[in-house]
């Protein structure tokens, strides 16, 4: 199926496509297949779950370390995590593009991650998303103040911490729960093994990327446009998650598959709506007392920040 011709990389793409559709097809590849620029090509397959496959050796000094037989270093050393940061710019960009445009036949893990999950993408996407949420949340208040001078704005730095904690907890705890659940149901599944924990983290991390431009677009103060952008981003992101998880839950009972997929989508929707409502809550004008008299000014200044904080936490 994979001929050892000049376009070795392209051939492998086709093989991966067919493999994603029929997981029990037998594939053979030459063990000395080289890719043109030493670009990282995956070692597909984990044991017997994919039928007959052989590992494709790749050349490249960056990945030579991984191929050597050496004892696994402890998780408290740097070298344990080094293998998870071994990505190029082009690989990260390719993974981001793959998460932005999910397609039914293409499994994100098989196509883009190629069984080499990285921690760089999820970590920095979460950091960027938290940072952008906090900044745009403050910017909406600034813009609201410019439009309506009676609104009192004070920089709300606590939003940075709230954003950070929320995004990182979501991006790490939900994959943990999902991974645990899939492993628990492993016995039901014969053909395809569950994803490793890091692959699940990668799936979730890259699926959050679409929210970064959406959050920036939420600065536009038109409510129906904001909901439209939110729905669009949620649809793309949830579709990516569902298409990636579908091959894994396909062999399970229909009830479990439906419950799992709907739980994933609902959690994602809750995150999106929570972010929209918490960070972009406009200060309603009737709750803000306009500074009518000079003597009444100090109590107003004390009053409006507490009002805005109580509005934000409600």
């Amino acid at each position, binding site marked *: 199926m994979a001929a050892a011709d000049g376009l070795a990389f392209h051939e492998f793409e086709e093989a991966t496509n067919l493999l994603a559709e029929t997981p029990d097809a037998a594939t053979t590849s030459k063990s000395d297949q080289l890719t043109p620029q030493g670009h990282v090509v995956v070692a597909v397959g984990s044991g017997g779950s994919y039928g007959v496959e052989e590992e494709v050796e790749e050349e490249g000094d960056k990945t030579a370390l991984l191929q050597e037989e050496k004892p696994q270093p402890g998780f408290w050393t740097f070298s344990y995590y080094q293998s998870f*940061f071994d990505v190029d*710019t082009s690989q990260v960009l390719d993974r981001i593009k793959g998460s932005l445009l999910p397609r039914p036949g293409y499994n994100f893990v098989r196509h883009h991650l190629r069984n080499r999950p990285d921690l760089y993408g999820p970590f920095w996407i979460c950091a960027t998303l938290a940072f952008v949420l906090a900044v745009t949340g403050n910017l909406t208040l600034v813009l609201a103040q410019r439009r309506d001078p009676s609104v009192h704005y004070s920089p709300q730095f606590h939003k940075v911490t709230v954003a950070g904690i929320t995004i990182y907890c979501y991006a790490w705890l939900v994959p943990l729960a999902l991974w645990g659940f899939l492993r628990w149901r492993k016995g039901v599944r014969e053909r395809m093994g569950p994803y490793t924990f890091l692959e699940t983290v990668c799936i979730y991390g890259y699926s959050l990327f679409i929210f970064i431009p959406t959050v920036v677009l939420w600065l536009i103060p038109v409510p129906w446009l904001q909901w439209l952008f939110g729905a669009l981003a949620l649809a793309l992101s949830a579709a990516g998650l569902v298409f990636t998880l579908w091959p894994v839950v396909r062999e399970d009972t229909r009830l479990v598959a439906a419950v799992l997929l709907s739980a994933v989508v609902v959690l994602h929707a809750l995150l999106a709506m929570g972010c929209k409502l918490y960070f972009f809550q406009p200060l309603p004008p009737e709750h803000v007392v306009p500074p009518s008299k000079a003597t009444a000014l100090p109590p107003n200044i004390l009053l409006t920040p507490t009002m805005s904080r109580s509005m934000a936490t409600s």
Partner: protein
Amino acid sequence: MKPADGSIMNETDLTGPILFCVALGATLLLAGKIQFGYVYGMSAIGCLGIHALLNLMSSAGVSYGCVASVLGYCLLPMVILSSCAIFFSLQGTFGTMSALVIVGWCSLSASKIFISALDMEGQQLLVAYPCALLYGLFALLTVF
């Protein structure tokens, strides 16, 4: 973009970086902001973070002094930005654009030196992004 010579980081030198940090604090002081603590604190924590990240991303390790040295030397455009802030306020369109340009300049030059010294080809943008976040924090300090 011309690649930087990889051997320039063979000897690490912290005199220049400390001088630039002091210069940044001094120009901020002249602009009316007393924020020496933030400058030193963010430099230290940023150096730690970039040091950890570069050790994870490169096959050869990197010492803390090398990271501090490169980041400190590439802070010079930020000193130029904060000296501009003495004469006119940066809170406007021109200020924002120049801050973005300076942040890009700092992070691209820092990442260029890192990847040529540590021989990490193809990862320049991946290194530039965390450096851009760090220099962005300095720019926030300068602009606001």
